[in-house]
């Protein structure tokens, strides 16, 4: 895909405090691949130990690719999805 270098990684920005684990699990995606989102929109909900955190869109654009689907585990800093900015 052209312009792949322009894509922005969607990550869990702030790892929740008071958790010992460096791994989390994706609980719910609220948008599908191809969806258009505003900056700051709720993209997905992840859980680290028992703490639920929402992951927001880093920019306005199109959700290009979901890397970690529902029930997938991820590590601190992992890319959860790729966003194609407007």
């Amino acid at each position, binding site marked *: 895909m052209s312009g792949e270098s322009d894509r922005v990684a969607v990550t869990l920005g702030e790892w929740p405090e008071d958790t010992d684990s460096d791994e989390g699990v994706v*609980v*719910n*995606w*609220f948008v*599908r691949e191809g*969806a*258009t*989102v505003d900056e700051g*929109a709720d993209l997905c909900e992840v859980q680290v130990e028992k703490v639920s955190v929402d992951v927001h869109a880093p920019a306005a654009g199109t959700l290009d690719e979901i890397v970690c689907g529902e*029930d997938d585990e991820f590590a601190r800093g992992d890319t959860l999805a790729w966003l194609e900015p407007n």
Partner: protein
Amino acid sequence: MAETIDRELTMSRAMVEAIATEMRENDEVFYMGEDVADYGGIFDSTEGLREEFGYDRVMDVPISETAYLGAAVGAAQEGMRPIAELMFVDFFGVAMDQIYNQMAKNTYMSGGNVSVPMVLTAAVGGTYNDAAQHSQTLYGTFSHLPGMKIVVPSTAYEAKGLMHNAIRDDDPVMYMFHKRLMGIGWMPAPDGPKTPVPETDYAIPFGSADVKREGEDVTIVTLGLHVHRALEAAESLAADGVDAEVIDLRSLVPLDTETVVASVEKTGNLVVVDEDYQSYGVTGEIIASVAEESLGALDSVERLALPDVPIPYARPLENEVIPDAADIETAAKRTQ
């Protein structure tokens, strides 16, 4: 607003969105229950409400269901619009007088001098090994008693529209949400309850069943979690040449008999699926209602519900008593 079109919500978030909208628009709406403020509801039914509305309008209460449900009835009669949550519907026993004699009957007993515009929310259902005192639905128990409306959402779309309608209703409404459908991290929902949900508010009227899948050969009537199990069964049935229609009742009181009868007059066959106990319950009521209206349309009838036993804790035993998609498929085939 790009996300208006594309976003999907879990059932819990759709519920909360409706409650928050009503709370912003009407100062008389407030929420109380056990662990609903700081915890956000043990099944996420109030997640984020305390942060926006504060402790005066989202209240944690002591463990006395009689006290706080009674307080809700009183507040409602004085013109407020309380939403009171029974953490598990199984706990109704300690507060039943407030529910069925006060909440449900005070309008009648006062000769219409007071209304009780409250919503009683309650978590229902099993499938996660919480044993006999935390897994019941008790749909039939509450629907049997006059004076309150009973609604059961099956998806996020329904959850929001039914909640708006419940809060705006001038009479008591019991809103029974199935834990397995909420979209909680530790209790994954099946595919289905997470749906696109409009950002604008809308109300789904009570007594309007929804045909979730159209079919010609057999009518499957159900509600709550089992809407999704019935839809799964319908896919397997289709592969075997049986075209099932799936009806989601959405409310038990009032009951949309008309939609069910119209479907049975088309298909001739009726399967009713319920997660409550079989005897004296939803399955018998639906079948009797169809028989009264259109006996001649019925070629074959099946019902699936919990056998009249306490719900077992052990996973294989619980799975055995709660109808699954394969059970529904088998029952539907028996009608053919």
